C-alpha cells in the first residue's frame, strides 16, 4: 500500500522534506520508514516524534488500534503536534 506521510514542521526542518510516500501496511510500518528516513539521527527522530501524536486520515491512532492500525492505499498518516489559540 502506498500511503502519504506528513511530518511536523520541526521534523520537516530536520529532514528537508515535509511529505513522503511510503509503502506500509500498518502505522508501525510508517513509523519504521520515517525513522529510517532520519538515518543516523535516530535520537532526533525519537525526540521529535515523541512530541507529536499520529493520525490516520485525521483520526488519532490512539483512538483506533495504535501502531497496529491497518492502512489502505492512499491513506494519509500525519505526525500532528498539539496547539492552541483562537
Amino acid at each position, binding site marked *: 500500500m502506498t500511503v502519504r506521510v506528513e511530518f511536523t514542521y520541526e521534523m520537516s526542518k530536520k529532514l528537508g522534506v515535509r511529505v513522503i510516500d511510503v509503502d506500509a501496511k500498518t502505522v508501525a510500518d510508517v513509523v519504521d520508514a520515517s525513522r529510517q528516513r532520519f538515518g543516523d539521527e535516530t535520537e532526533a527522530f525519537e525526540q521529535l516524534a*515523541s512530541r507529536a501524536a499520529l493520525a490516520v486520515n485525521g483520526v488519532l491512532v490512539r483512538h483506533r488500534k495504535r501502531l497496529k492500525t491497518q492502512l489502505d492505499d492512499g491513506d494519509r498518516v500525519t505526525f500532528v503536534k498539539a*496547539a*492552541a*489559540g483562537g
Partner: protein
Amino acid sequence: MIKGYAGRVLEVDLTARRFSFEPLDEETARLYIGGKGYGTRLLYDRTEAGIDPLGPKNPLIFATGPLNGSVAPQSNRFAVVCKSPLTGGIGNATCGGTFAFGMKKAGVDVIVVTGRSERPVRIDVDGNAGTVEFIDAADLWGKGTYETQALLGRKKSHAVIGPAGENKVLYAGIVSNERIAGRTGVGAVMGSKKLKALSVSGSRKLDMEDPEKFKAYTRDVRAIFKGHPVLGESLKRFGTGGIVNTTNGRNILPTRNFQKGRFDDAMKISGEWFEDHELVGVKTSCIHCPVSCGRDVDVPGRGVVKGPEYETLALLGSNLEIGDIKKVSEWNYLADDLGMDTISLGATLGFAMELRDRGMLDTELAFGDPAGISELIQDIGHRRGLGNDLADGTRRLSEKLGGVEFAPHVKGLELSAYDPRGSFAQGVEYATTNRGGCHVQGASMYLESVGPLTINPQNLKLKADLPIVQQNLACAINSMVLCIFTTYGIVPKQVHEMDPSSLSYRTLAFLLENSGPLFRWVQSVKGSPLLWFEKWLTLITGEKFSSGHLQEIGGRIFNLERMYNLREGLSAADDTLPDRILHEPTFSHMKSGHPLHELLPSYYKKRGWDASGVPTARTLERLGVAV
C-alpha cells in the same frame, strides 16, 4: 465598594447629549463579576423584548471587570454587550488592546451608551475631571480604523468603528489599537448610533485587597506562562497561525465552505510559513501580556501592519481555498481597517462562492481564485453592489438566494474554524452557545481536538459535559475580563512533554475520558482558589473564589443569556448546526455528520433545562437568576 472595581458606571444618552456617573451596583458585581456578565444583566433589565437592534433603544454597553487595570497577564480585555443585529439574540464580543486599562484609569467600570446622535459624534471621557465631551466627528466619518486612531492620538485609549460599522454591516466590529471586538455586529450598533469613537483617559489606580501578595503571585504566574509550551513557546513563536497544521492534520480545518476539513496548501497559510519566509516583523502583544501572539506583517502598499490570526487564516484562506498568506494578510488588513469580523466575512465569502458554483449567484467569485476579493471586501464595508447582500451575513443571504442547508452559521453567527464533525463537544458548544457559532465561548476543542491531552472527539462520551464546564468557565473569564488563552495554561507543561504513545500518557487520557465525576467536582467544589484566575480574583477583590464559584457564576451568566434569547423569540430549534455539518461526513469512517441530536437532550438535562431547552424555575432559583 468591593475592591478591584472603580465603582462607577458612566451613563451616556446620545439623543439628549447628556451623561451621568452612577455608582456600580455591588450586588450585581458579586453575582455577575463584571464584563460580559454585568453587561448582560444590564441589557436584560433595561430593555424590552423585540427592540430594534439598530434602533436607539438598544444600549451599547462597554464593561470591564475587576482584573482589568491590574498587571495580571492577559487581563487587558473589555466586553461589549448589546442586542445583536446579526442574530437577533444576545450580542457580545471582547477585545484586547489598551481600552480596558484606559477605562479603569478613567475610574469607570462600565459605560452604557443609549439613544442615537443625529450627526457623527465622538465621546471623550476625562475620568479625572469627571467630564464627558460630545465632539462632532464629521471629519472622521468614512475613515478607516487605523487612520481614525492615528488622528485621535496616543494620549488616550480609544474604541472606534470603521466604514463597516458606519454602514451597519451586520458583522462590523469595534476596534481598539489593532484588536477587534469582532463578533455579533457590535460595530453596527455603534454605527447606528452615529458614534465614531469613544476615548477614555485618567490616572486612577486600581484598589486591590492584597497588592503585595498579588504582585508576588503574578510574578510566579508570569514565569509559568513564559515556560509553558503553548503560551510561552508555540503561541509566542508562531502566533495563533501555529494551529493551522494541527487542525489540518486532524481534518477539521474548514475548507471550501466547510465541504472538507482538509486543505492541501495549509502549510502556506500557517504560522510556520510566516517564520520560514521571514514575513514576520515585530511580534506584538496586548498590554501586560507575556504571550505576544500578534505579529506584524509587511503588506505591499500598506506597510507593516497587524497580521492575520488563525481564524482569519482559515476562513479567508482554506475556506476559500486560497493558499496565499500574503493575500490573506492583505484582506485581514482591509477587514481590520473597515472594522469587520474576519470570521463572518470569510464564511460569507465561502458561502457566496458555493452559491456561484451551484448557479445560484451570478458572480466571478470562485474558490481558489483571489481575483476581485479585495474589491469585494471594500464593497461589503461600504455596502455597494453584491457587497450590500454579503454585508448581511450568511443566514440572510441564504434566505434570499437559497442554500440554507450549507450556510455555515448557528443562530445567524458564522461558524468558527474548528469543524465540529471532528470535534463533537465543540459542535454541541456551537449549537448551544447563546451568541451563536463561536469557539471562544467555551473552547471545548482544546480538550478534544487540538490540545496536548485530548478525549476521543468522535464518540458521545462527555460531549454534553465538557461544553457545560467550558461555557461556564468562559462566561466567568469574559466577565473578569481575561483573555481565553489564560485557560490554556491549565494543562501543565509536564503533560505537554509526555510522549502520546507512552503508557503514562495513555493512562492520563483514559482518566480524562472517564472523568465525569471530576467534571462534577470541578462544578461544585467551593474550596480555596487553585488556578490563577481564581487566585487573582480573590487577591484583588478580597472575596473567595474557587472553581465551583466560577462555575456557578458562569452558569448564572449563561442562563441569563439563555433567558434573554428566549425572550427575544429564540428557541430549542435554534440550538442546531447547519444541515451540512449534521449530514455530510468529512471522515471516511463516518456515515453521517455531527450527532448533535443524540447529545442535546443530555446537555439540556445536565443544564437543568426542560426538554424544550428552557431553564426550569428550580435551575434559575438555584443559580440566582432573576428574570
